[in-house]
């Protein structure tokens, strides 16, 4: 049993709007990620997956605030550190984050190499400029990025190239955990594949130990990650291995989500895609009972009472009041 490199316990974070309303975007999330494993997080827009990614960094700025819970990275609770310690010791070294529009993260007025020098001045001040250049070009070459990129400005690079550059830079300090928030959503399929190959390469060469991958593209998650976690309305509704989650989802929401996959394979054309009626609940208010109940075809009066607790069966957890047998029976009878 590998050690857990990332452990999150009952994390709650919220947004404060200008009208002093509180939106609990991450509401009691717990999970652990063993060393060397990859975890995918799926869910529709507004379910809190990007907020979770941001919260995992332990670095909060308004309107996002921290409420309670703990985040252990390699055994240290980063929520107990002050901001300065967090910035110098954890960010970039232990955990790194690739934001959604990573291509806009590059400074348009700096050459890539100057950008890297800035980072190194802060984190590895003992290195000279030549050493930084050596290190950077070596890293870029191993990742199949030409070292010519180092002397370019961001506007000279294509979208896929920029994305790969950002990934290469954010992992230059060999962080243990890399959090990638939709790294491929703005790219076409060919560049997407190159970016995925880069992430795999980072894992194979042990530059990073674990990966948290956030996307709504389910076929992509299936190929990239070991485990998949589905989020809905700030909570985790189901977690299991990638194969089980795609072929045998238990929670009604995951099931609907998996039903919306489109792939260019024989037989796809005649398949009916499942659509989920309605919109996700407003997280400004506390919700009684199961959060998916309003949109669920199987919901009963029972579902709206109390709090739907997570159940654990054979390494799978899901959040529904029905047990596995009952759910499977309902799916077979298929009144969807």
């Amino acid at each position, binding site marked *: 049993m590998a050690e857990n490199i990332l452990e999150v316990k009952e994390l709650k974070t919220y947004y404060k709007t200008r009208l002093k309303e509180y939106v609990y975007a991450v509401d009691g999330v717990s999970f652990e990620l063993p060393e060397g494993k990859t975890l995918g997080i799926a869910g529709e827009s507004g379910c809190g997956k990007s907020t979770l990614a941001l919260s995992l960094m332990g670095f909060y700025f308004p309107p996002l605030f921290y409420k309670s819970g703990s985040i252990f990275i390699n055994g240290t609770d980063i929520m107990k550190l002050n901001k300065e310690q967090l910035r110098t010791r954890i960010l970039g070294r232990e955990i790194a984050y690739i934001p959604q529009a990573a291509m806009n993260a590059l400074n348009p007025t700096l050459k890539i190499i100057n950008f890297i020098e800035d980072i190194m001045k802060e984190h590895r001040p003992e290195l000279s400029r030549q050493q930084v250049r050596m290190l950077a070009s070596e890293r870029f070459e191993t990742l199949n990025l030409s070292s010519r990129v180092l002397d370019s400005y961001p506007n000279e690079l294509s979208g896929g190239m920029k994305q790969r550059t950002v990934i290469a830079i954010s992992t230059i300090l060999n962080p243990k955990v890399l959090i990638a928030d939709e790294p491929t959503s703005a790219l076409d399929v060919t560049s997407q594949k190159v970016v995925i190959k880069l992430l795999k390469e980072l894992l194979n060469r042990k530059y990073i130990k674990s990966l948290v991958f956030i996307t709504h593209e389910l076929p992509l998650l299936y190929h990239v990650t070991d485990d998949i976690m589905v989020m809905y309305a700030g909570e985790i509704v189901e977690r299991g291995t990638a194969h089980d989650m795609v072929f045998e989802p238990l929670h009604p929401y995951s099931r609907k989500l998996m039903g*919306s996959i*489109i792939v260019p394979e024989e037989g796809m054309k005649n398949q009916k895609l499942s659509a989920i009626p309605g919109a996700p609940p407003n997280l400004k208010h506390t919700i009684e009972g199961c959060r998916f109940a309003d949109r669920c075809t199987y919901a009963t009066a029972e579902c709206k009472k109390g709090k739907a607790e997570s159940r654990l069966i054979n390494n799978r957890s899901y959040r529904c009041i029905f047990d596995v047998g009952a759910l499977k029976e309902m799916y077979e009878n298929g009144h969807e």
Partner: protein
Amino acid sequence: MDMNDILLSGRHVTRDFGFGRNKVVAVNDIDFDFHEGEIISIVGESGSGKTTLAKMITGLLKETSGEIMYRGRPRDLKTQKKRKEYWKDIQAIFQDPFSSFNLFHRVEKLLIDCFTLKGIKLSREEQNQKLREAFSFVNLKYEELYNKYPFELSGGQMQRLMIARIFVLNPKVLIADEPTSMIDACSRSTILDMLLKLRTENNMTIIFITHDVGLAYYVSDTIYIMQKGEIVERGKAEDIVINPQHNYTRQLISDVPKIHTSWDVG
């Protein structure tokens, strides 16, 4: 389909950008025939010229050479009046709903403008009735969105409103340029269903521009594969996806992550 119901066709359509050494041929000598009621997908990677082609079909860009024919006759887009006439029949939905709205107008203005374009004069009650109909076609509630500004809407709601607009205008040809790329998987199926409903109900010709072969396969009858401004393969959706001939098509299909077959990313 016989040759008589060709609605839109192009011969040797070419578009260049720039001059001299910097000249880029975005669309290079393309022929196409789109039939009435057909759903066509134009698939290619970024920079393959698919959006340029879409803009030429809508008449927003002029072709450098070649000809696009509508109902068998060359189009006449010389004056604004004639362009407006053309746009009654040909409409588009673009990739980014956030930049398709006028920031200063309330959202229902978008649909009211459609009545003006069609030249229909309506009383207040009739107009409300029509708006309500259009909103309910795309599963939006008129009461919730009435009097709102675009920034108060989510991306999915905006994109659905763009479809409501198409429902009101009822054009002959719809060009959908990556209509679902900003939208997540579950809302995507809802939007695709709406577009397909437009075809069944109104016999609309729909041209999808996308880089997702999976999506193209799911929605369309015919697929055109574009590479570097040229059409490298065309044919029935089944033939292209299950039995691709051109190397580029094979590569495109292998780049899409699939569920039942493995994906070689090492």
